């Protein structure tokens, strides 16, 4: 059975719930079974928040929280070093991080060996394409480059549905550029 468990790290107000859900909705369009849920707690802008996504080929019955994700996405670069973003990450796991550093530099900062790391400068892309520091959707592009969890087509569709018009188009451009620019080790 194919089951991927993803944990998202960001801060309140950065749209963690939104991108976790967009990924789930895209996987659903691809015919997969999904769960997307936030860390259960009061929302506070700026405080570290966590989101979770499960994607599977079969109906997902489990309803406990995710303790050993195979993928961690770090949306807020300032969290690296502040919290243990790799906590519980499965041995051959993957970290996709918003960072201006190279994957190997980040790997040595995090002192991780066996896992793969992808990085993307999401802030730079957001500022250049959107003109605003909203970089959550960029992480979706980087993620599906590191691991082809959903098709670009489905992701484009759900982003356009969620943000109709220009905002959607710009976010799709952000995702595509992040897909191009994300680099792995």
């Amino acid at each position, binding site marked *: 059975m194919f089951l991927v468990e993803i944990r998202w790290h960001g801060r309140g107000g950065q749209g963690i719930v939104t991108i976790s*859900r967009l990924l*789930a*909705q895209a996987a*659903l369009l691809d015919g997969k*079974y*999904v*769960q*997307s*849920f*936030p860390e*259960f707690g*009061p929302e506070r802008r700026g405080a570290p928040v966590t989101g979770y996504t499960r994607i599977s080929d079969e*109906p*997902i*019955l*489990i*309803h*406990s*929280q995710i*303790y050993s994700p195979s993928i961690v996405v770090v949306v807020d670069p300032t969290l690296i070093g502040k919290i243990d973003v790799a906590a519980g990450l499965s041995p051959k796991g993957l970290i996709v991080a918003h960072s201006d550093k190279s994957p190997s530099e980040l790997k040595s900062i995090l002192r991780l060996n066996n896992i793969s790391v992808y990085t993307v400068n999401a802030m730079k892309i957001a500022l250049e394409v959107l003109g605003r520091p909203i970089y959550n959707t960029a992480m979706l592009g980087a993620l599906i480059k590191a691991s082809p969890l959903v098709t670009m087509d489905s992701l484009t569709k759900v982003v356009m549905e969620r943000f109709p018009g220009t905002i959607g188009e710009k976010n799709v451009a952000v995702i595509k550029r992040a897909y191009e620019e994300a680099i792995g080790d």
Partner: protein
Amino acid sequence: MAKVMGLTGNEAVAYAVKQCNVDVVAAYPITPQTIMVEVISQYIYDGEMDAEFICVESEHSAMSACIGASLAGARVFTGTASQGLALMHEMLYIASGLRCPIVMGVANRALSAPLNIHGDHSDMMGSRDCGWIQIYSENSQEAYDWTIQAFKIAEDPRVLLPVSVNIDGFILSHCVENVVVLEDEDVARFLPPRKPLITIDPTKPITVGAICLPDYYFEVKFQQVQALKEAYNVIREVNREYEKLSGRRYDFVEAYAMDDAEAAVLCLGSTAGTAKVVARELRKEGKKVGVVKPWVYRPFPEESIIKALGDVKAVAVLDRACSFGAPFHALCSDIIATLYRHGKDIKVFNCVYGLGGRDITPMEIRSIFEETLETARSGRVREYIKFIGVRE
């Protein structure tokens, strides 16, 4: 082709309510139910749903408005959780006593004090004797399907009782999952407009809820007992009709891997899903375990539970609420009473878990299963009441 949507438990209930052509929604927002009524009010504002949304100042008023609207012949929905349900408490009895077929979504949440917004069953268990039909969902799909069925059950002239559709707060209310939805026309055919027997009407005044002294009160209560008994037949009929429409089979109880099971875990709601995953793993190791999940908690489906338990020798009953000072906690008391009445010698122990949203992990459920197997082997219960994952 069936339409699949990604919906949270709250959204799944709201979507079902929209398709059920509800006339009146009176509700007060409370975490983790808020999004349920927020989405409904958006449907109404956007003209997707032709209903009256009554903004009220409290849950007590919400249920009062629902009762009035229901007596006037409307199809009525409300949603709440936790303190909101507690504040409604006296009106819950009035809704069932006046035989109002109201449907209520409850995003189950712990009760204060201390203040906690997370999921457990303390709220609904605190109102379990209120005369409502009570249904627990395992996931968003079930929440959607039961909400549609709930109106049909509630409004049946043989029943005329309110129904609560329960979803675990946050665990389901805020979790996006695949939900296969029906076409609006199919729901409309399944659930035609409500046909009330008697309605309040200013041109033909009647009195409802008048004082009823020792000479009649008892008979009115006895009628409620009879109506809940009658609900058994109606629920079964509605389940079968819904199966024809949707292809999804519902019943009073779901039995998972129970055919030749020696031991079982019995629980309500989303935990049953996690328990199924663990049971599947244990089955691969050759251990004969299964899961029993009552969908319908009131009326308590004794026959279905006895049938589902089959020949198991031991069962762990999981309660996500505390009945302080009671010999067993709520669900377990009901199970023990059921086994006694049917002369079944199945060893039972009670596990209290997940209070205030404390997660129950597959590892914890695995150790509960191991203990049921040990109990089945030895024929002896080691500890009658266990508290899972608590720091003592």
